[in-house]
């Protein structure tokens, strides 16, 4: 059999020794998996922090100027929303109340208390894009009722079920249904209840009058085709300085940014990705350096024959790219299995679509190319004259 145009030297060198290839790919896959998992955890964490916001049905939100994260909610008076309602583009307003600090749910199994995130809505507003909530709005409107998140940590609250009766911060509450939202790093579970029931449990939020009620997120629905940015700017200038007006996307980005950049949680996962990258670089370097060392005489011969350094570098870099692709595929397969396992175990929203698989592929290739280029220093410095020694 005669060779084709290109002699696949890089591929042959990489795959010649099957045992070494397996070890090399396993090493690279480990680094890829590490990056996938760390990045996956980061995205899952960020996504979980905005899982309520992304289900809000509206285009513009009003929040307290002092609110930096929904996990530590600050409130503003409902009358600001009434003021916003005066704008002709605004077709509807819906207050959303969030209480994360003082809501405690009693576990019916052992009577223990654990903190739970409570979201209050007007049932008649249909403000949350959660199917179960939409279906159970009438039931939710009944006194002393709530819906519980079936994805809440069972270790903290047991298994939530419709009809279950327990206690929320000293008030008896009956669960009329469950829904699936998901937990986050700041809360082990979620409850949704009507604003009226919420005010009974947390009377401080009710205020003396309706205008004084402490709204966490004021959701505005606007006419189709409205310039959201312009409207937001007009609202901001019209409303007092104690509130901030954002589009829903800006609010979501703000919340993600807080957890990603301001809070150390995002940074920790970033560091995890970087560590995976560094570990991968070290592994790839070792693999490629070892291969170059074993073939230094052959490469020196090519250099003597007239191969330029750039051409030799290309061989090693190609070898690095092949290693990256094989390691990526293996790492991806392992990561998918781990995603499923972790999701089932923790409820964190881990999946490939949230994980920038192309970014990880890019990182894997960069990792191996950099390592290859660094390992190739030995190759570039080899003196072909030594072959005559």
């Amino acid at each position: 059999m005669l060779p084709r145009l290109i002699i696949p030297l890089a591929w042959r060198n990489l795959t010649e020794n099957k045992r070494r290839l397996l070890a090399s790919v396993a090493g690279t896959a480990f680094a890829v998996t590490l990056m996938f998992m760390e990045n996956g955890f980061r995205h899952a964490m960020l996504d979980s922090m905005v899982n309520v916001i992304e289900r809000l049905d509206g285009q513009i939100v009003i929040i307290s100027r002092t609110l930096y994260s929904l996990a530590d909610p600050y409130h503003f008076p409902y009358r600001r929303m009434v003021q916003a309602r005066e704008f002709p583009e605004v077709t509807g307003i819906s207050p959303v109340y969030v209480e994360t600090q003082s809501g405690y749910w009693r576990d019916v199994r052992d009577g223990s208390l654990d903190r739970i995130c409570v979201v209050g809505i007007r049932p008649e507003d249909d403000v949350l894009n959660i199917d179960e909530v939409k279906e159970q709005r009438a039931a939710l409107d009944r006194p002393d009722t709530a819906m519980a998140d079936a994805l809440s940590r069972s270790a903290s609250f047991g298994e939530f079920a419709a009809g279950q009766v327990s206690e929320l911060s000293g008030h008896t509450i009956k669960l009329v249904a469950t829904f699936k939202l998901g937990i986050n790093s700041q809360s082990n579970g979620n409850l949704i209840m009507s604003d009226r029931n919420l005010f009974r449990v947390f009377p401080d939020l009710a205020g003396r009058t309706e205008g004084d009620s402490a709204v966490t997120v004021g959701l505005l629905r606007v006419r189709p085709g409205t310039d959201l940015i312009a409207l937001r700017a007009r609202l901001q200038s019209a409303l007092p300085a104690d509130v901030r007006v954002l589009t829903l996307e800006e609010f979501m980005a703000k919340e993600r940014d807080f957890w990603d950049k301001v809070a150390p949680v995002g940074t920790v996962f970033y560091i995890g990705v970087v560590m995976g990258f560094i570990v991968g670089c070290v592994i790839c370097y070792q693999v490629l350096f070892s291969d170059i060392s074993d073939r230094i005489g052959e490469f020196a011969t090519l250099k003597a024959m007239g191969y330029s350094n750039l051409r030799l570098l290309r061989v090693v870099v190609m070898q690095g790219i092949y290693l990256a692709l094989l390691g990526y595929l293996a790492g991806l397969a392992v990561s998918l299995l781990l995603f499923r396992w972790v999701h089932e175990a923790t409820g964190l929203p881990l999946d490939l679509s949230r994980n920038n698989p192309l970014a990880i592929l890019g990182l894997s290739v960069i990792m191996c190319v950099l390592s290859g280029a660094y390992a190739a220093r030995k190759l570039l410095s080899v003196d072909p004259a030594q072959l005559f020694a």
Partner: protein
Amino acid sequence: MTDTGTFSTLTSVAVMQPARADVVIRAADVNYAYGSGETRTQVLFDNDLEISRGEVVIMTGPSGSGKSTLLTLIGALRRMQEGSLEVLGHDLARATEREQVELRKNIGFIFQQHNLFSSLTAIENVRMATALRRDSVQEMNNRCVEILGKLGLGERMNHLPAELSGGQKQRVAIARALVNQPALVLADEPTASLDAEGSQTVLEVLRNMADGPTRTTVLLVTHDQRVIDHADRIVSLVGGRIVTNSLTRIAVRICRALVQLEILKGLSESTLSRIASYMTVEIRQPGETIVREGEEGDRVYVVGSGIADAYVGGNFDEELCFGESFGMISAYFKRPIRRTVIARTTMELYVLSKDDFLKALAADTSFENRIRTALMANPPQPGVFASGA
């Protein structure tokens, strides 16, 4: 066959002969040193060398004589330090790194180690060289198949190096060096790992390339005496200096005649070869008087072939044939020629002039002492080097 190997039509041929026209390697005053300061070690001293297109030249010398260094300088694998070196029209004293790399593409390198990529088949290893002169796939493959066939590897071209014997691997490496039909081949002990048959095959291929349309110049570092029959010249280095640069076939024949001389018995091959390098070859016709009794002589003759008759005072004295000498260096021994010598058949005579005789003496004290001792102990006798005819 080149004209350097035949001399029957010439009346005089110098053994120490300059290169013919069309010089492809021209070295002048080449010095080279390793290290600097106190550790500086000079390995080449004022070397001059010219090698023509189509010549097969053996470079020999003891270990550490500088032959490998000279070879690497000629191969553009090292940068020149002092002197001038022109190879294939490139001035290597001024060549940039890039120009050196370009030059090396026209040189076929054969190293002692085969340095084949174990991941590539024989033909793929050879194709690594054709990639330097990109051609059509068919053309590149044809060249590879042809050269591998010439070297007796037609049936083994799709085998990996691990499936080849040591000699076969070396022949693949040689094929890789020759596949582009380079203008210059530099080889370091190319036949060291070959059996007699393989060695013969390789040397014939090299000889044919030198004699063929490409008129490839071949420079070999070797101690393999089998190579001599295929070479045009031998260049010997001792202590970093080229001490002889002789036409191989004539030098071999002269040495064979010299070892017959009683006075030279026991001298080393290098001394004999050095003496041979000072000699010229003369052809004499039947009936021609070569030396005349009573005249002052300035040359010594050694019979290479044919028969001569010696006369003293007009009377037949004896017959002179292969390995016997006659003539006198009057200026040195201060004696007239004792006999008249007349060619009976066509004769090939090896001639040492007075000046070259003195040079040969000066270069080797053992040789000079031996001559002096012989002259002091005995009156000059026929068959003794430098004796009166």
